[in-house]
């Protein structure tokens, strides 16, 4: 008995999961919105401590990786296995660049005694404490999603390599791509909220 895979249904299911992720980060943005209202100058001050150049670089890296993930889907739709694999590998590399940048950013902050429950934050202004608390939680949760996305893209890469993802059957790649685009979408909002609110 041949089973027909309901690719549309599979894709709708993925979108519904993405909605739950959007609401997850949305909840954190609610916190940000309320405390931005409470402490506008201190949020601006906190923002100045973050490096706009590294933030912009991370934004560019994720945007490019989103493009290459979309390109990998185009490639597989056209039956171009090699191109699809190259695009996926590059996207995964972009994710790695992002995570490494994040490591340097956090490292620099931690070196300056700015981390959750640090003395500088505890003894300083509450507004700054909240700003950096939100910074660590939101970018941390986002970073976790970047890593999960990289895992999904890697799985897709292996499946393409083994011919399990083809032009007529690419739902796994498509859904991994959607997850990666979501990661990019979230960062598109995180970037101005933390780095550009000056």
């Amino acid at each position: 008995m041949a089973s027909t895979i309901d690719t549309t249904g599979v894709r709708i299911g993925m979108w519904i999961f993405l909605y739950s992720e959007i609401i997850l980060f949305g909840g954190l943005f609610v916190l940000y919105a309320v405390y931005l209202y409470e402490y506008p100058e201190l949020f601006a001050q906190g923002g100045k401590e973050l490096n706009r150049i590294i933030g912009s670089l991370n934004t560019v890296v994720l945007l490019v990786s989103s493009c290459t993930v979309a390109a990998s889907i185009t490639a597989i739709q056209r039956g171009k296995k090699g191109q699809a694999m190259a695009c996926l590998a590059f996207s995964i590399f972009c994710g790695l660049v992002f995570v490494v940048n994040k490591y340097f950013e956090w490292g620099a902050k931690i070196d300056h005694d700015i981390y959750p429950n640090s003395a500088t934050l505890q003894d300083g202004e509450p507004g700054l404490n909240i700003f950096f608390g939100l910074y660590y939680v939101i970018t941390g949760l986002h970073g976790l999603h970047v890593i999960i996305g990289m895992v999904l893209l890697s799985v897709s890469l292996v499946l393409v390599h083994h011919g399990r993802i083809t032009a007529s059957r690419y739902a796994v790649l498509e859904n991994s791509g959607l997850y990666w685009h979501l990661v990019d979408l979230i960062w598109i909002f995180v970037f101005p909220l933390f780095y550009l609110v000056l």
Partner: protein
Amino acid sequence: MESSEEHRHIVGYGQLAVVLALLLTLTGVTVAVSYVDLGFLNVPVALTIATLKAALVLLFFMHLRYEGPIIRYSFITTVVFLAIMIGFTFWDVAFR
């Protein structure tokens, strides 16, 4: 008799490149604007540009432009829910 070929719209490399160019341009604009002091307007301007960028990613990279009504309307519903969740909470706090 369903066909598994309904979702066959292929977004060409050229189109993807144009969208990426637009996204990078908008990123440049938002960073440049952040160096100009517009007072309280800095936040809405930055968020508007972010929304434009998000729309481009959603419509073209995520194929939302080519999806059917179920995905389209469920997505819009999610955005409306989010707007209410953030907007009304902010509104409540602002008028206490």
